[in-house]
């Protein structure tokens, strides 16, 4: 099998198993909608403050509900020694990592694709003015979340307090990417294009993705195999 076939075999396996049961997806989605609802009590939905907070609100929702999905990433391989079987299989560790990261990315992207319209409806905002750029920015930030989440999922898979440690490890490291995503999303949801003042956030996001994806691809073999 070529490398890409291996990666997409793993990604397909994860996506298929998740989409058939929809356990994590349903939980994550409900959680996201509940947070969106709760935030309506934090800020008056009619005020102008909401426009300034839209990016922050949305990415908080995605970060919290995304972790529910990321927790499942390696944990689903624990019963029946599936993780050992995967590690023993002839695919390189980085292929396993990329496959899982792509699957996580797709699942979080589904959450986002549903949450954006829900957000627009609940808070009465039109958010599609800069749709292509918004999709690109969301993809970059979601990839950052998926990469770090898959990597730290591999690190914490054998711990008892896995569900606690994973958020604790991910969130501080994810902050540059989350911050950039929040700033850019606020701008794009309001309908403005990314100007020279805000292009720095895009650079941060891209650099973050490149650096951490390479780092993870190099180190994941060590984590899984030793």
């Amino acid at each position: 099998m070529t490398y890409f076939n291996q990666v997409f075999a793993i990604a397909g396996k994860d996506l298929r198993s998740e989409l058939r049961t929809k356990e994590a997806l349903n939980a994550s989605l409900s959680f996201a909608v509940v947070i969106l609802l709760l935030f309506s009590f934090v800020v008056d939905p009619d005020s102008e403050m909401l426009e300034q907070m839209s990016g922050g609100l949305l990415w908080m929702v995605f970060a919290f509900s995304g972790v529910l999905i990321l927790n499942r990433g390696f944990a689903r391989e624990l019963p029946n020694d599936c993780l050992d079987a995967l590690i023993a299989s002839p695919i390189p560790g980085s292929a396993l990592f990329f496959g899982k990261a792509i699957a996580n990315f797709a699942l979080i992207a589904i959450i986002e694709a549903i949450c954006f319209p829900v957000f627009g409806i609940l808070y009465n905002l039109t958010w599609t003015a800069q749709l292509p750029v918004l999709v690109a920015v969301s993809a970059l930030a979601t990839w950052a979340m998926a990469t770090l989440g898959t990597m730290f999922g591999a690190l914490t898979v054998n711990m008892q307090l896995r569900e606690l440690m994973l958020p604790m490890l991910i969130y501080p490291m994810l902050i540059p990417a989350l911050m950039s995503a929040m700033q850019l999303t606020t701008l794009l949801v309001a309908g403005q294009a990314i100007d020279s003042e805000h292009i720095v956030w895009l650079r941060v996001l891209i650099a973050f993705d490149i650096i951490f994806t390479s780092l993870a691809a190099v180190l994941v073999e060590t984590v899984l195999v030793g």
Partner: protein
Amino acid sequence: MRDKLIYGAGIFAALYFVRNLYVILLQLPDEAMQGAVYRIFFFHLPPYFTAVACFLGAAIASGLYLKTKNWKYDVFAVSATEVGLALAAINLVTGMIWGRQQWGIWWTWDARLTSALITWLIYLGYLMLREGIKDPSERAKNSAVLSIFAFFAVYFTYKANEWYRTQHPGPVLTIRTGKNTIDPAMQAMLFHNLGAFLLLAVVLVAVRMNLENSQRAVESLRRRAHAIA
């Protein structure tokens, strides 16, 4: 012999600090606008540089551990990270006190303070990860990977800040700005205190490494004792 060296270094560090405090409090000229409070600076910036040096050392030791699987690198990594965490805490707290006096607020979410807090939290996560894994070799391996990630994250966060002007004062050291923005006596004192803190960090890391080695000896003794007795 090694213990004597550590004691000696500790005493030398203490004397160095006494000498530095004397110079800071009694000999340095006054700052034009801030009054006495600017002298906190000498206990604000050197701990930060020392903490970063500790974290860098820990990351390098982690990489070496992953390559050679030699335990002493793992011992060094955890010791350096813990000492670095204590020094970074000093940086945060002195910064908050200084900021309270200068700007009237205990905290502000500007880039430099936020990245200092993020650094602290990331390395706290490292210590928590170590607590959570019981098997020594898996603990060493996983925390080594995390340490490397953590240092990249910290460096990245720090660099990302440079692209964004902040409320926090900009660089003042001549090596960074290339011109005379700071009194040379103050700059010399800064480097002196940095030296003192580096020496102190070396002593603390050595002590912590002894502790870690004793802890491992205890664990192996415990296994033996419970097997025999």
